[in-house]
């Protein structure tokens, strides 16, 4: 059995008003201490992984803003990883980049280090909307970064976009879509803006300063994105993930299909051998704990029933759906045992779900309301 690796880089140059990922302002000194701790964590973590499982299929470095990192640190980290793991020959190595903190030189260095799937957090091509999100980059930063990525020789790369922004109209969305399609990246993650509690954005919405598009407009926007991207050869393989054939993100698919993954860095989560655990979301405690040679882990005891809930919840978010075969192999019972049969029939009669053949999956009308469907299906 193989493994996926996630590394959380918890620094940003500025903090965006909508983001609730764990991060803090970038400081070189803290970065040094962070990488030292990361290597220490790796040596502790590897002991708990079966030797047979020490082949990395995918690596994903996310954040925060990984493109802020000093790449000499990454080089050292990779040497350490090579000492612990075998790298699969078709290793997928994703790395998140903000357009304002990248240049040709850095891209080339990433390429040299083995990154083969840079992800650019472009969010939007509209200056006003970017400003409203408190993003620092300009449109030319975005275009330049993509151009340079191609010039460097990256065949597989992705862009992240957001829709459903305060005061965004269908017109503005379609401008964004046109630009995205013109750039022709192999992968697009198109996320609806999530208002996370305790963010600046949440406060502004609560106080009425900003207003989100209503439910019907959100639905229309999502439908428009699906239609436009399909027309241009992108396949929606998960709620927010669109890819040209062969370019789906293998790392993310592992999350959704119940594969094992190891997470390193503060706030990173792991799922190994049907066991979930997470590092504390606090850089100070993380560093301190690793100074004492212990991983700052918080275990999340997930019983059989909860794992079946997760399998249904994650499976239904993908275009493929829940594989009856996989489900049975994992839990020793058919998927129907984990869901409400009457509700399933009703949803099928209303064209929201299809349950024929080997997969139980949501239809194009079902996927946009997946949360409600999942809530009502789960027993």
């Amino acid at each position: 059995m193989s493994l996926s690796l996630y590394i959380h880089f918890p620094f940003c140059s500025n903090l965006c008003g909508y983001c609730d990922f764990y991060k803090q302002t970038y400081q070189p000194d803290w970065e040094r201490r962070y990488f030292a701790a990361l290597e220490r964590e790796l040596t502790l973590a590897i002991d708990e992984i079966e030797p047979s499982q020490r082949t990395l299929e995918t690596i994903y470095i996310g954040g925060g803003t990984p493109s802020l990192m000093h790449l000499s640190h990454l080089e050292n980290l990779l040497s350490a990883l090579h000492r612990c793991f075998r790298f699969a020959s078709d290793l997928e190595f994703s790395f998140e980049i903000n357009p304002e903190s990248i240049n040709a030189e850095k891209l080339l260095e990433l390429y040299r280090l083995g990154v083969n799937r840079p992800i650019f957090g472009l969010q939007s091509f509209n200056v006003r909307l970017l400003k409203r999100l408190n993003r620092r980059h300009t449109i030319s930063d975005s275009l330049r970064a993509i151009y340079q990525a191609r010039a460097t020789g990256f065949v597989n790369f992705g862009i992240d976009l957001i829709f459903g922004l305060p005061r965004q109209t269908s017109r503005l969305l379609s401008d964004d879509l046109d630009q995205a399609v013109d750039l022709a990246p192999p992968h697009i993650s198109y996320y609806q803006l999530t208002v996370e509690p305790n963010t600046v954005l949440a406060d502004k919405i609560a106080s009425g300063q900003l207003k989100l598009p209503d439910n019907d407009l959100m639905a229309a926007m999502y439908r428009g994105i699906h239609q436009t991207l399909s027309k241009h050869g992108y396949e929606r393989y998960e709620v927010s993930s669109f890819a040209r054939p062969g370019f789906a993100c293998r790392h993310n698919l592992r999350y959704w299909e119940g594969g094992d993954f190891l997470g390193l860095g503060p706030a990173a989560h792991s799922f190994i051998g049907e066991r979930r655990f997470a590092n504390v979301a606090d850089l100070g405690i993380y560093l301190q704990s690793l100074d004492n040679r212990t991983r700052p882990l918080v275990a999340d005891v997930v019983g059989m029933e909860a794992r079946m809930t997760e399998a249904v919840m994650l499976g239904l978010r993908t275009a493929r759906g829940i594989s009856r075969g996989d489900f049975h192999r994992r839990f020793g019972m058919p998927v129907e045992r984990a869901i409400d049969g009457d509700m399933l029939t009703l949803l099928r009669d209303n064209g929201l779900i299809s349950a024929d053949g080997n997969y139980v999956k949501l239809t194009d009308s079902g996927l946009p309301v997946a949360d409600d469907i999942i809530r009502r299906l789960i027993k």
Partner: protein
Amino acid sequence: MKNIRNFSIIAHIDHGKSTLADRLLESTRTITERQMRSQVLDDMDLERERGITIKAHAIRLAYKAKDGTIYQLNLIDTPGHVDFTYEVSRSLSACEGVLLVVDAAQGVEAQTVSNLYLAIENDLEVIPVINKIDLPAAQPDIVAEQIIDLIGCNQEDIIHCSAKTGQGIDRLLETIVNKVPPPAGNPDRPLKALVFDSVYDSYRGAIAYVKIVDGSVARGDRIKFFSHGKQYEVDEVGCRRLTNFPLERLGAGEVGYLYANIKNVSDTRVGDTITSTSDPTASALPGFVAIKPMVFSGLYPAIAEDYTELRDALEKLMLNDASLRFTPETSSALGFGFRCGFLGMLHMEIITERLAREYDQTIINTVPNVEYHAFLSNGELIEVDSPTQMPDPAKIEYVEEPYVDAQVITLPDSLGAIMRLCTERRGIYKNTEYPTQSRAVLSYAFPLSEIIFDFYDKLKSISRGYASLDYGLPYYSKSNLVKLDILINSEPVDALSVIIHRDKAYKYGLNLTEKLRGLIPRQLFEVVIQASIGSRIIARASVKPLRKNVTAKCYGGDITRKRKLLERQKEGKKRLKQIGTVEIPQEAFLAALKIDS
């Protein structure tokens, strides 16, 4: 016996009855100033907050009059709300006199008048008192005119006082002693005692407040109750000062309390007669009525699992509230619950509030209704205290609903608005009288269901607080009533059904379906809300299906977060009621309570 004076205070809410009682206790040194809490007679929290007396008590004062004699004064407190008219009548029948207390600024109100009539029917000596003469807005002369019109006394019979400052209190006490006659019982005859109140004590059981009419009672005596015949041994007798004050015996004419290890207040019914088992009196005192609830509502636990807890709580409440009734009931929408009967809306509010406060029960209650009489074609009478019990219209010959004769007292300037309100409430106009130039008394017959809910509040608001309402016991009369059902995706929601006059059904149906549209969240499927009478749909509203609800990101840490959310929602599901495939939040049921009929 000749030194005993039993009296009560008749006053409208806020006219200062409780403050006056406090002042009497203080002036006779029954309690010291240190013990003085404001309004000591009302000892339940709820009573204190609402400023109304729910349960009557009796308190004994020793008063040394100017003639040097020490008198035993028993002040019997009465509940001040129309829900409790029967209790008032029993309390009054334990007295020989009443103080008619009228606010110097507000004047005479309907509640006062009807209680005054009860006192006069009982042949009680009436001592008129104008209170709050210290208020800047006081108009003692005008109020005195009203009182003279009402009881035909002389100007100089009226005592002017301020319970707040203590002015006039001495004269009042002297007048009580001089004017209220001593009780007229016979100490040598067999025991005959009137139960005029009862309270539940969790340690000692039901405590009966009694007036000894004939004979006497002491600890160790064997007694029995006339209405149910059960026998008990007396554990303790005494009177109330600030706390219980045990006595050797209670003799003829005296008022006090009695413990006899009685488990349940329904065995110490107000109005019942107590006598001795060895030497019983021949007949009971007149006036005992087993009171019947007038308002009914379904009470359901918000979470189905709390059903047993709710039942236990209701049983405990019934221990000290003989007028509360409940029977198990099932609703397809709300599950298992209870159909409860109450004396009136205030009583219902008090019970639901006590369930929340004292027993931590969150409940959903259905729209309250009165009891209807459905007469079938075959002559059979069906008593309907819940809309679901209404028989098939095809089998019904006619339906009767309770009516009451009511008096509204108001200033003449808001007469027009009040009459419009009365007409809206299906009032049948009888006449208008003007007892004084500044007061109009409107007489109407109303369907009880039209005035028990929010009529009084409306009346108060359109008359800027001046109008007051009182009504007597209900009687049944024919009416054009229909059962209105609410259907959600074609399934009837029994908990939302109401019985309503045909002329009002359409507007009600429209309002409720609209209100529900706003309260039922968008779901996976369209939700159609309809109001119907029989098979005829009279109103319709729909909730469009939800178009977008899916979490954008679901990676490493999100998975746990999202799963935990699902687990919490699964818990929350217990609070949602499901009709077919439609999930209905509790607020939707509560909204029905706030619809204007």
